């Protein structure tokens, strides 16, 4: 290139993409997944779940102010955050598993960006027509008709975007109450601002950014590309079968050509705007729509399906030699995927186990260390403990506080006028009580440095109990 030539542009505008409508197995599967995931997202906050009079009746609720997470029959307190950590680890391992077995299957089917973009394209197709009509409309100058179609589309997009942002906030408050407050402009500012931000991102990402989000904003394509290997099943073009491609089947050299008739169906349906025949590409989200498009064409020209198909890179070479490719189960069932499955299941089982052994009384004992002990007038030695009891049930409960030890010790709980050493913990609350443990001057615990003891709380009615080991400091 001559030095005085103008430098090439370093920034490029987005090339518009007009995905054509397609029918087929994978498209049907994707419609179903879209329907189910969107239904889960929009409807979950409205499911009711009776927990008794003192607790919210929303099945899934993240109660920030009350610091509780409700999920149907499960209630998570802040000190049980390891459940959330465990679920996140499981989500990560699950993603590893699916990526090593099926490539970017998350991107192609379940990612919210894909699902909402798919929905927005569906709306676009309803209003502006299929690919050819949209291309014409794009190229046409502004007219009343174009303006009407565009505005209609944007309004529908905006309504969907607002519903999306709106659904999000219902997970954080009682949905019917919040809905009423939102309409009457009495909801908190944070609800409105959250809806505003999510409406804007949904509208822009689903309507205008689309594949740009995947290509330039999302880190997953790069990470997932690193997790795939030559045995991973991914959407690919059977190069050996399709090439050399050619348009006219009745041309002289037609019998020397491959199966690809260069009809561009795979390119026209692609929401990422790429040509799968160029091989593996960073932009490909493996949505498998090109498989459906190509199968349709192959059926029409009387060739077997699967010119574009789920393939492993290792199979491409084998198939070209005429060797039978490995069966699908051998691709999916590899040491790597088995290991991921094992790890995933192990954490899952551990979490379920932790959930079932979880007691509905939870107590902690914090010995007061400043000072370690107090000498009383009669020479007794007194230790102080801060006792916290969490009542994880929906009923008010009364507990007896007791201690066990090899040495003689006396317990005295600040009870504020109730039965001695009994404390009442309201439903779904944490009670903090000060517990004194006293050793008489003549007893061993008063003189020796430390004495082991265990503090117990026992439900007065059910006799359920929980205990925590701690120590008593003497003068020694």
């Amino acid at each position, binding site marked *: *290139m*001559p030095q005085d*030539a*103008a*430098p*090439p*542009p*370093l*920034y*490029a*505008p*987005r090339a518009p993409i007009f995905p054509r409508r397609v029918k087929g197995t994978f498209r049907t599967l994707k419609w179903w997944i879209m329907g189910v995931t969107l239904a889960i997202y929009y409807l979950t906050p409205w499911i009711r779940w009776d927990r008794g009079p003192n607790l919210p009746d929303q099945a899934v609720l993240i109660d920030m102010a009350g610091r509780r997470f409700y999920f149907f029959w499960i209630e998570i307190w802040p000190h049980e955050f390891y459940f959330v950590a465990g679920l996140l680890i499981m989500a990560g391992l699950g993603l590893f598993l699916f990526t090593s077995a099926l490539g970017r299957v998350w991107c192609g089917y379940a990612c919210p960006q894909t699902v909402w973009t798919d929905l927005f394209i569906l709306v676009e197709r309803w209003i502006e027509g299929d690919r050819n009509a949209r291309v014409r409309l794009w190229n046409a100058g502004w007219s009343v008709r174009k303006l009407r179609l565009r505005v209609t589309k944007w309004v529908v997009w905006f309504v969907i975007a607002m519903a999306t942002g709106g659904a999000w906030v219902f997970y954080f408050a009682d949905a019917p109450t919040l809905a009423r407050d939102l309409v009457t402009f009495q909801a908190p500012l944070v609800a409105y601002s959250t809806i505003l931000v999510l409406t804007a991102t949904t509208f822009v990402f689903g309507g205008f*950014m689309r594949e*740009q989000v995947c290509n*330039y904003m999302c880190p997953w394509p790069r990470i997932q590309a690193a997790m795939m290997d030559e045995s991973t099943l991914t959407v690919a073009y059977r190069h050996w079968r399709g090439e050399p491609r050619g348009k006219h089947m009745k041309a002289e050299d037609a019998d020397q050509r491959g199966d690809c008739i260069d009809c561009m169906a795979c390119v026209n349906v692609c929401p990422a705007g790429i040509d799968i025949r160029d091989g593996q590409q960073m932009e490909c989200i493996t949505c498998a729509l090109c498989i459906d498009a190509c199968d349709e064409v192959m059926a029409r020209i009387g060739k077997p399906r699967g010119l574009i198909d789920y393939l492993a890179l290792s199979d491409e070479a084998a198939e070209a030699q005429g060797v039978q490719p490995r069966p699908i189960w051998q691709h999916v069932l590899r040491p790597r995927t088995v290991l991921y499955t094992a790890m995933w299941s192990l954490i899952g089982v551990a979490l379920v186990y932790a959930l079932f052994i979880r007691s509905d009384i939870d107590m902690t004992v914090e010995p*007061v260390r*400043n*000072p370690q002990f*107090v*000498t*009383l*007038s*009669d*020479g007794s030695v*007194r230790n*102080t403990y801060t006792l916290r009891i969490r009542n994880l049930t929906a009923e008010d409960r009364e507990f007896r506080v007791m201690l066990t030890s090899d040495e003689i010790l006396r317990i005295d709980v*600040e009870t*504020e*006028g109730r039965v001695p050493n009994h404390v009442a913990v309201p439903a779904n609350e944490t009670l903090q009580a*000060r517990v*004194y443990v006293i050793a008489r*001057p003549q007893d061993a615990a008063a003189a020796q440095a430390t004495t082991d003891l265990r503090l117990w709380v026992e439900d007065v009615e059910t006799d359920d109990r929980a205990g925590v080991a701690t120590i008593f400091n003497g003068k020694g």
Partner: protein
Amino acid sequence: MADKDIDQVTGTDTTGHEWDGIKELNNPLPRWWLWTFYGTVVWGLAYTVAFPAWPLVNSATAGLLGYSTRAEVAEQIAAVDAQNAEVAQRLATADLATLAPDDPAHRYGVAGGASVFAAHCSQCHGSGAAGAKGYPNLLDDDWLWGGDLEAIAYTVRHGIRNEVDPDARWSEMPAFGEILEDGEIAATVEYVRQLSGQDHDAGLAGQGAVLFEEQCSACHGEAGEGIRDLGAPRLSDAIWLYGGDRETLTQTITYSRFGVMPPWGARLDEDEIKAVTLYLHQLGGGE
């Protein structure tokens, strides 16, 4: 761009930059990215105009919105005060003796009292209120001047043995080194140890009993049970402000002690005195 320089391997356009035969590929960034970048620049500049930012000689630009972190903190404090106004008012007017421990005003007072204690009292009495030699432990059940709410509030308000407050609690033990012989002091020490149930020389203690009757019982009581009106400590228990060993007792009797506490009525307002009184009373020894 008629003469594009395409890289053979990748099929990508190059920028025309070349180093040792290696050409720089041109994968252009999306244009919206550029506009986003310009947007952040504009936002950044606008931000420095709207908010305090540019440093000047003595201060910084105030920003058009007039925002300041100090004002925000003041606002937050005012908001919390407003939120607590009702309970604070209740504490201010309530009779402490009848305030139930689970009353929100009681809890508010204890929490506020803990802050007052940490700021003003912990220097002498310790952060855990366990005291030190010469500084009473406030956790136990022994009180020099009384441990009910009224007595504690009076002590906090007026202090002890200070020249500032005419109503300060006052008493003074004579330095018996000027009155008694060394032997007599030693005998008294043995008797005091007998009173508190410690090991002692029975012969000397018998001698000391007579001296105690003459010299000490007027303030400390016939059996060493102490007299609170005089701030005279009880000598028959296990708690010692300075120490119950022979050396310390000899020192105490010979030279006397003169513990001082400032009058906090001058520094704390009535609400704070109420709060710290509630806090002290519920530490484990309140009467």
